[in-house]
């Protein structure tokens, strides 16, 4: 079943046309990789799917689980299982990670008519996730991303994903800025998350992440369009040959 369906999506930012007709279909259980040169519109796509303000949808449609969410608020899309890991996570000083995660989890539970989770159960779950991601437990008491290193911020994005267990996760360059060990930890976290019930869209520049997380599909974006789709071998070809040969074809 298709979890995410993007059809003929045109998006402008500050009156500049950025996405010029993107189509994408992601089914449960699949991993998609989106690659493409800097400025080709990958992050714009992720932000538009998440409903960020300023990303005007000029035409086209976004469906989650067959429901048109094109005009829903970001938090409503989140409640419906859409998650986006940020290329550049922001800091929220003063709000502790625990508080932030608890508020996020409770917002999701409330949206689905569930009771509040007990603090004990929540903390038990959170501690085990922190351990899995090899994050120092002290991180939970610090402000959201507050003075985290680049790599720590990225791991924190994955922690948030694992807490919210979304149905579709858009991970925007979660691999950039990670050291070799951290890349493995993050890849392991993503692989454990991967299941027949959910789907993952990885935005990445490098094959090295795909060595750990084998994609079912690879898409290449250029100038606001998906210009080529293929299987995992496409990423290897890009690694070898760059993007030039695609432009010519």
């Amino acid at each position, binding site marked *: 079943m298709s979890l995410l369906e993007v059809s003929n999506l045109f998006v402008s930012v500050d009156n500049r046309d950025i996405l010029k007709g993107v189509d994408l279909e992601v089914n449960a259980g699949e991993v998609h990789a989106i690659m493409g040169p800097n400025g080709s519109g990958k992050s714009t796509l992720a932000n538009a799917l998440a409903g960020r303000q300023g990303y005007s949808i000029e035409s086209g449609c976004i469906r989650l689980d067959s429901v048109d969410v094109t*005009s829903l608020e*970001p938090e409503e899309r*989140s409640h419906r299982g859409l998650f986006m890991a940020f290329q550049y996570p*922001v800091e929220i000083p003063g709000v502790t990670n625990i*508080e932030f995660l608890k*508020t*996020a989890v409770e*917002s999701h539970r409330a*949206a689905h008519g569930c009771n509040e989770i007990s603090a004990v159960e929540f903390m038990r779950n959170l501690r085990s996730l922190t351990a899995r991601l090899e994050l120092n437990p002290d991180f939970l008491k610090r402000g959201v991303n507050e003075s985290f290193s680049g790599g720590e911020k990225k791991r924190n994005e994955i922690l948030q994903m694992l807490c919210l267990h979304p149905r579709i996760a858009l991970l925007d360059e979660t691999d950039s800025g990670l050291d070799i060990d951290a890349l493995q930890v993050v890849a392991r976290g993503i692989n454990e998350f991967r299941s027949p019930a959910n789907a993952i869209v990885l935005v990445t520049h490098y094959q090295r992440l795909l060595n750990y997380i084998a994609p079912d599909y690879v898409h290449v974006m250029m100038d606001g369009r998906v210009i080529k789709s293929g299987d995992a071998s496409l990423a290897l070809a890009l690694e070898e040959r760059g993007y030039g040969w695609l432009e010519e074809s």
Partner: protein
Amino acid sequence: MSSKSNPTAQELVQNEYRAGFVTDIESDTIPPGLSESVVRQISNIKAEPEWLTEWRVDAYNRWCSMHEPRWAHVKFPPIDYQAISYFSAPKGDKPKSLDEVDPELLRTYEKLGIPLHEQKVLAGVEEDPSIAPVAVDAVFDSVSITTTFRETLKEHGVVFCSFSEAVQSHPDLVRKYLGSVVPKSDNFYAALNSAVFSDGTFVYVPEGVRCPMELLTYFRINAQNTGQFERTLIIADKGSYVSYLEGCTAPMRDENQLHAAVVELVALDDAHIKYSTVQNWYPGDENGAGGIYNFVTKRGTCRGRRSHISWTQVETGSAITWKYPSVILRGDESKGEFYSVALTNNRQQADTGTKMTHIGKNTTSTIVSKGISAGQSSNAYRGLVRMNPGARESRNHTQCDSLLIGSKCAAHTFPYIESRRKDAIVEHEATTTKVSDDQLFLCQQRGISPEKAVSMIVNGFCREVFRELPMEFAVEASKLLEVSLEGAVG
């Protein structure tokens, strides 16, 4: 074509004022205008002793030759002091028990969540046997309506009553301490207050007594064109402790109303006074019409050795706030603290801070100020730390943080340090941060509504100060911020 219209940080902070209703009740009001005869008339209504009448008249005469201070970072049209009424009280004699209180008044306090029945605690706090009840003095316009838990307090020797009553029942204490911390001619508004003050609260905690419950005074301005000029005097005798809370609201009215209170605290040897305020006067509408001018003089003296005074304030209301709760650290090893959250939205203006005057040896003071500005508001911290020549080895630490929501508001910090000692340690830290649309989007992406996100961020920002509030007030303060920041989405 569809375009997302998520609220920006700015749009989230539209203020909805929930205490803005008017109580329909008949009042005895002295017609607008101020003169020596009005001052005498007020004193006469209250059947005051002659020394107090003359004290007021003297204050009035001094006030006549004084001018409004203009140094604060606030702007407002000139106030016509002859257009204000200086006394308004619900008709009839002061009720002797709760049964005699006008039901309309009881409903007012019920709506505001203030318990006038002794078994109740503040609204919003679940009935929890571990939370001690709160004794309440309810001041409505110019007079005190009722004071609860008097008997319980009396058993401990604690005096908690309206100021007018104290003038009759404890004239010696009043005479000894009135004006001893804030002299009549201290400043323009203090002089005005000294001339026309109507009611307020008096507290005396005897030597060695730890006051068994929190004391709360709740001020309500109801009448139109009436100023509120209350006077609070708290005396903590040697080795005693008291935690005193102050709350306030007013109806929504189109014109500005003046509130010029004076609060004096006296802490003797080893006494500790903890004074907490949640100020929620009507702030005016989003265009700046109406609202309270809150021009208040609050000061405490640590008169003895190891005296300790701490001010905690959460200021969310008023069109203009001008107040600097201060501590004079006279006794050796005495301690002064100031914890403040000031939130301004729309066209509100706040110029607030503190003054720590170190006179005794080894005195310490701590200042934590959190300013939150939204809308087109302006929020200024103004603080003075003075180390006098005798203040050997004294120290101050000041932390001053500003949070901006939206791009049309302003935050200012004016720290003044006057040190006459080389061995004094004076530290000052300041930060300014902004609630960004990126932060809001992160929250929303994680499923948190923008309203909830702003209140979470603001609460996190204020944590250090909320920690200082008694539990009942911390709950109320946190909710109040949520209401003040709640808003029209989209």
